[in-house]
């Protein structure tokens, strides 16, 4: 079997979720740990996202975090979309505050003023 045939068959099994897929993943995992010792896994990366965004991650962890982001497209997308989601929420909030708010509904305005009169 040529290398090309082996590669296609292996990837095919991986994509189909064949029992051989887990062996393939284990192989990739062991290669990852061998060539990138001491680097973060995706699960560890996810646990650091908050502190990285807050700027409270120690320098060594920050470097490991940034290295992982460079080699893992899924974590990079996860991180970028995390930041973007917060920005979108913030922007919507700003826009809602900026836009001239509607006057209070008449019945609510009346209820607030009545409540104060009753309190007097």
């Amino acid at each position, binding site marked *: 079997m040529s290398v090309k045939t082996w590669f296609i068959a292996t990837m095919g099994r991986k994509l189909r979720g064949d029992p051989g897929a887990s062996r393939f993943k284990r192989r990739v995992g062991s290669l990852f740990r061998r060539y990138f010792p001491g680097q973060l896994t995706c699960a560890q990366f996810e646990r650091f996202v908050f502190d990285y965004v807050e700027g409270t991650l120690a320098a060594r962890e920050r470097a490991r975090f940034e290295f992982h982001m460079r080699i893992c*497209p899924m974590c990079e997308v*996860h991180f970028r979309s995390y930041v973007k989601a917060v920005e979108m929420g913030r922007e919507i909030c700003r826009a809602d505050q900026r836009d001239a708010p509607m006057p209070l509904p008449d019945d609510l305005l009346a209820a607030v003023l009545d409540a104060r009169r009753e*309190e007097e």
Partner: protein
Amino acid sequence: MSPSAGRLAQAAASDDEESLVAALRDGNERAFSQVVRTHGPRMYAMAMRLLADEEAARDALQEAFLSVHRSVAAFQGKSALATWLHRIVVNASLQQLRKKARRPEVSLEEEIPKFDELGFLVGPTKENPASVEELLQRSDIRELVRRSIDGLPDACRVVLVLRDLEGYDTAATAELLGVSISATKVRLHRARTALRKKLEPVLTEAGS
């Protein structure tokens, strides 16, 4: 013209907040009405963001203005009136949240990132290159963001709204909620992660 009415007229003419507060302290009804009309809409919007429930927001607003009426004598003017009112409506909203029968907590299980057996993240590999500004030009996306925030569990939504959207720092948010700083951080991360997941269809490229 009563002294407080005089003060109110002065406030209207010069837009002087100090005079308005003085008229409020004197129990002037027109001053109170003016404050409700001017600041009420923003306060109501704030209560709606925190509570995501119209009835609860209305109750919170009423409670907030009663609280203004009762405690305006203690307002020393160290902060702007709007800041003081903002704090009052936040507290009234949080009180509503504690008082009201809680909505069944929504599970965030689906929103938590998934990892395979080796610890690799399972998820999209392509980001939608559109910027936040470009995305928010679409009204359906703006609506999705609002709905997604409203749909968060109460405990997560209030942390997100106070800390990320209203700009309170972590310590102030923790104090308002009566929880520790570390608990606040955990909730905030959960809320952000859940919001990210809800917005994933627009933040990543379909089919990736």
